[in-house]
């Protein structure tokens, strides 16, 4: 049973970690979301184009390989420019280089305009729960 919400999903930058992406794709569909999965190595532009085109409700950015901080800079601003004002932005994975205190990392990504920030090993269930809260008010 589809819940009517559309997600754009992908792994940002030069990142090729494909496993988590394939699992999230599967899990979100099972949970009733409409998923536009861009796979790995997705540029900011590709995320935005896909979201505009599909009138998505949220963009879910994965970053595993450590360059997340460089890759995500300016994404919120570009969304605004493209008319995606206020679109829900999540980021998750191993989004910085090394083992860093999560609170600090979260703050930096919040400041970059992400609504929610998820640390390493976040389970699909947690993410789905957050999406339901934010998109369906459940």
């Amino acid at each position, binding site marked *: 049973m589809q819940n009517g919400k559309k997600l754009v999903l992908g792994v940002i*930058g*030069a*990142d*090729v*970690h*494909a*496993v988590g992406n*394939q*699992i999230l794709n*599967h899990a979100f569909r099972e949970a009733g979301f409409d998923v536009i999965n861009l*796979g*790995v*190595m997705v540029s900011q532009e590709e995320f935005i184009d896909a979201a505009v085109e599909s009138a998505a409700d949220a963009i879910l950015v994965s970053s595993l*390989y*450590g*360059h997340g*901080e*460089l890759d995500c800079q300016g994404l919120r601003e570009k969304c605004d420019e493209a008319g995606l004002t206020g679109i829900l932005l999540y980021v998750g994975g*191993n989004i*910085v*280089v*090394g*083992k*860093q205190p999560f609170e600090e990392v979260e703050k930096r990504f919040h400041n970059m305009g992400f609504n929610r920030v998820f640390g*390493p*090993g976040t389970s699909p269930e947690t993410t789905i729960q957050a999406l339901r809260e934010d998109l369906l008010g459940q």
Partner: protein
Amino acid sequence: MQLANKKWTLEEFSQLRKEVLAAWPTGAQVDLDEALAYQKAIAPEKRFVNKLNEAVKNRVTLIQPRAGVPLIAEHIALLKHLETEGEADLLPTTIDSYTRLNRYSDAERGIKESQATGKAMLNGFPAVNHGVEGCRQVTSAVTAPVQIRHGTPDARLLCEISLAGGFTSFEGGGISYNIPYAKNVSIEHTLLTWQYVDRLVGLYEENGVSINREPFGPLTGTLVPPSISNAVAIIEALLAAEQGVRNITVGYGQLGNLLQDVAAIRALDKQTREYLERFGYKDCEVSTVLHQWMGGFPQDEAKAFGVICWGSAAAALSKATKVIVKSPHEAMGVPTKEANAAGLRATRQLISMLADQQLSDDPALEAEIQIILDETRCIVEKTLELGDGDIAVGTVRAFEAGVIDVPFAPSRFNAGKILPARDDQGAVRLLDVGKLPFDERLKAFHKDKIAQRARHEKREVSFQMVIDDIYAISKSRLVGRPRG
């Protein structure tokens, strides 16, 4: 250039070379004659090939970490720490992801931001940007041999700079550094770029400088059946040997079932030698590497030590020539040097304690080896057939046909039709063999194994098994059993 498994002429090579070296300013620093002289001055005990050959002779297992940070001084400090505090036998220099994609100006930005913030903003060492001199600073600062480890589809410039920079081993290959590491790059293209790399190494070899080459064994690191990674390793060994490479380390990523892991390394060693022999590369030196579990790790450091130690045991008991070591930070991020050294010391303890032990050659082990040999043979022979005897051409067609198929790969040139899952003892089998050219007996073998597990778990064979298996080790299991 037309792809064929044929040694490049010096002319073909030289023609391309100018273009390669022009891709980034540091390319101009490479002068082959000067580089050969520099390499020849490196002490024998600092050469990768010598350490490996000695280990093969003595049947001991060497230990090697992964490690790389953006700035030269920090990188040297890191490597020194790993050889003193980590007791590493062999050292790495892991390259950052921008460099791997030839995005040297992004790497430059990473270097700048790392300098500015005092934090590592790249996930590795940008060797091309640091140039020949930067590399030499690194390789001359340590006592162990150093290898470039990366994941670069087009590593031609990186190889030029790093060999001139004093590195004595170079990881990768046209399949193993494409399929797991790229999305839109054709196999044809990477086979060509890696022929360049292998020809360059061959040139060094012909000039009296022996460089080790290591196809990347684990591929996507996620439930890759041994016959698939062994077939890729063998093909890349053949391709390298044709271009003049003489010292090859074939690799395999630990899967977790001890019998299967030991069998995989033994089969890999034997079959690589057989194929090299068959195609006339008689003077090749072969060694093996086992990578500690390459899939998702548990977040808890104590549990991560458990995974690390089990990988060490598999390496020691299979008598792999070396083992690539993970750190207790694996699930979290690039490790600190302390965490990296801790992983090495735990590994050292196991490797030494198990040095004099081995699994006995019993029928179960023999049977497992035979299965891997048979499957691998099916894949390699079909690949040869598809290429009308040319293994390079055959490889391109084999990927198109799904005859070689790597699970969970990002590349669109990979069929992605097979589905691996564990059997009831935790060995990785195939839930769906896709288009793999297995004979009926082999297909039935996999089917039976998975069915046996399904019966035990009282559930249907399904994709959920695969998902459960992907998460299993990070949840302290090997087989992803249904909960409750």
